């Protein structure tokens, strides 16, 4: 394949680090190949995603392409001007004013002074920092800092953009503005390399996606396939042995991922956002039915694990973090969580997840201890509370939460008794999503009943978006409220 329209070309790239001996700083240094035999080409105008768990070499790869790290073997070539979004604001001198820093950063990116002068006003305008442009940036808030840094890079029209997890910063309006601007690069023929844990973003933006696993290029192809490959990789921790020379156990691989921890006795294998009809969705509208489906495998835990979720704004502000300990079977939050199972057809054993069509047949059952789940429940029937998908009996509005198993179950007692099926799904449902327009991060976790042992915790690994057409309110959440205007 000889083509000449590449913008970035990576050729049997490898980089070796030396790790200090772990036991007491011995002199023997251990070799560690952070990347090896990585090959790919990014075409002009292409958006190329790089995914993989933490420690898989994504950021290192970007740093080699940016010229910060030297390749130990092979090479990475770049055609044209690079815009490294790797570390925003790295080019700034905190003592200098915003205006001075625009010139400094411009010179670091080799933008001719004349161009900077021409673009100066646009940069200042875009950053929205006109009032503070003659203030030293050390007095800026981190948000202002990032906005200025971003604005500068955006205006020098690069040929190759390197992006490493930057979309969790800045306010929403600015983020969207920036996103538009970045996408406009693509139209101008600029190429982009995006490293992200945000699968939604990757799927939305990328033409092709590479999956890195322990320094090896494990997969390269269409975004959906790559994401599935990556999720499988995490899920199984299998098939990894063939991919690298390092001998990491899957546990270590997981430890490497700072956003996931736990001993995996109960494992969260998949988190999916779906609509009322069970169709996977990433974008919801305010007021929509929202459901997060957490698939799990129980590797033999006897007590009743506690599932939890959390919704954050992109500033990592926790909006809501409920768990099944409080909610399951109690009416405190009028919320509902369901452990659901289905019959495992091969083994003939029951597990607790039914196909969506069955799930829609909602019904309320008598309270039952959880041991019964695997034994007494009817085939393929979902067990869920009165609050799921239907109005409450007392006619009060439904509120968000986990689906309760059934009405009237004494929550904690119930919970203690419950035994988790081997495989299944937990569904977190908000009947009417009160979130306003914006991007939200989502955590899912499963702990032991005393909440001290993490079985599997996925910290902000998921992402969904909310649109609010026709709502003029500001903020993240819609609170029940009303206006009264009267004349005296």
């Amino acid at each position, binding site marked *: 394949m000889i083509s000449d329209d590449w913008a970035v070309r990576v050729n049997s790239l490898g980089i070796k*680090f030396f790790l200090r001996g772990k036991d007491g700083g011995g002199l023997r240094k251990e070799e560690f190949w952070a990347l090896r035999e990585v090959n790919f080409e990014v075409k002009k105008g292409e958006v190329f995603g790089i995914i993989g768990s933490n420690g898989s070499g994504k950021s290192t790869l970007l740093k080699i392409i*940016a*010229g*910060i*790290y*030297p390749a130990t073997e092979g090479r990475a070539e770049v055609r044209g001007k*690079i815009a*490294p979004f*790797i*570390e925003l604001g*790295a*080019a700034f*001198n905190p*003592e*200098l004013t915003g205006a001075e820093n625009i*010139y*400094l950063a*411009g*010179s*670091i990116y*080799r933008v*001719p*002074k004349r161009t900077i002068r021409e673009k100066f006003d646009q940069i200042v305008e875009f950053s929205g920092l006109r009032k503070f442009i003659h203030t030293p940036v050390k007095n800026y808030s981190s948000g202002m800092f990032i906005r200025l840094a971003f604005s500068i890079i955006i205006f020098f029209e690069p040929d190759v953009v390197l992006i490493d997890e930057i979309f969790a910063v800045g306010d929403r309006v600015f983020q969207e503005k920036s996103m538009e601007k970045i996408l406009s690069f693509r139209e101008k023929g600029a190429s982009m390399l995006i490293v992200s844990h945000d699968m939604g973003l990757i799927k939305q933006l990328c033409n092709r996606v590479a999956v890195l696993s322990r320094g090896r290029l494990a997969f390269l192809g269409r975004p959906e396939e790559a994401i599935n490959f990556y999720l499988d990789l995490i899920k199984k921790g299998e098939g990894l042995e063939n991919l690298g020379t390092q001998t990491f156990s899957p546990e270590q691989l997981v430890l490497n991922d700072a956003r996931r921890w736990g001993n995996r006795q109960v494992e969260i294998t998949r988190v999916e956002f779906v609509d009322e009809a069970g169709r996977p969705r990433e974008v919801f509208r305010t007021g929509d039915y929202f459901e997060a489906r957490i698939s799990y495998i129980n590797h033999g835990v006897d007590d009743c694990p506690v599932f939890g979720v959390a919704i954050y704004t992109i500033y990592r502000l926790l909006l809501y973090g409920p768990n099944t300990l409080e909610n399951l079977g109690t009416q405190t939050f009028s919320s509902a969580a369901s452990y659901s199972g289905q019959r495992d057809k091969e083994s003939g054993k029951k597990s607790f997840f039914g196909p969506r069509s069955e799930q829609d047949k909602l019904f309320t059952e008598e309270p039952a201890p959880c041991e019964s789940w695997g034994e007494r429940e009817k085939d393929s029937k979902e067990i869920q509370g009165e609050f799921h998908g239907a109005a409450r009996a007392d006619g009060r509005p439904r509120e968000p939460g986990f689906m309760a198993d059934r009405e009237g179950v004494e929550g904690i007692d119930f919970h203690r008794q419950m035994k988790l099926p081997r495989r299944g799904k937990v569904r977190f449902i908000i009947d009417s999503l009160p979130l306003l327009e914006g991007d939200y991060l989502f955590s899912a976790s499963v702990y032991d009943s005393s909440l001290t042992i993490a079985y599997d915790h996925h910290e902000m690994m998921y992402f969904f978006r909310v649109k609010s057409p026709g709502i003029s309110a500001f903020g993240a959440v819609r609170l029940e409220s009303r206006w009264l205007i009267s004349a005296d």
Partner: protein
Amino acid sequence: MRSTWWELLSYRDLLFNLISIELKLRYRHSVLGFLWQIINPLFYLLLLSIVFSRVIRFNIENYTIYLFAGLASWLMIQQSSVVATGSIVNNQGLIRKIYIPKLIFPVAVLTAQYIDHVILVIILFFFSLFFGLSPNGSLVLLPLIILAHYFFSLGLSLIFASAQVKVRDVQHIVAIIFQALFYATPIIYSLDFLPEKFRWLMYFNPFYYFVESLRYPVYYLAFPPAHISGPVIGLTAVSFLFGLFIFRRGEKYFVFHLS
């Protein structure tokens, strides 16, 4: 090699910016600002000149100018090299995050230092006029002599800065060595002051040649003779090329030693 210089050239705006930041920020909040860069050495000069001409009584004609010229040469090399030693480590934040040709940092620091020192040399020139010395044609060599100082210290800076990346003690060691060398170099005294049998030692002190070379146009009022200018040219070339070699060999890996 050629591409290195091209690359450096393409970063010239950055070089100018870094130099001006270096000059601007140093005295941003002080009242006298830039003047300190001159007041400091002048005060030092005054002190030394009083101590050694009035108290210890060296018998050197126009001692103040003799001392000033020696001190200017010495400070040019010593101060700038010591400051430039930290140039890579002090910019680690930048180096770890953005690609910039690393040569730019020592060059920027050193150049900023030299701008200060050139001003000092200009003052020296007026001093010598004031003290009744009338400079002659040898003065045309002054810029070249300063240039030699520049490249000599650039070579040293490149070596020191590379070493400093790996071992952070280098800066202190360098400072101590320079302190000792200050007294081992005829700056405050003259060569005659040394016992005859030790004088040969001086020929192994590179700073001797530089100090003397600067004295020629402003103090001896003559062109530096070959036994001074020869070693100066040779030392400059060796220092610069060796420094560049060391630096370029190591610069790719600096990033692994920075945190």
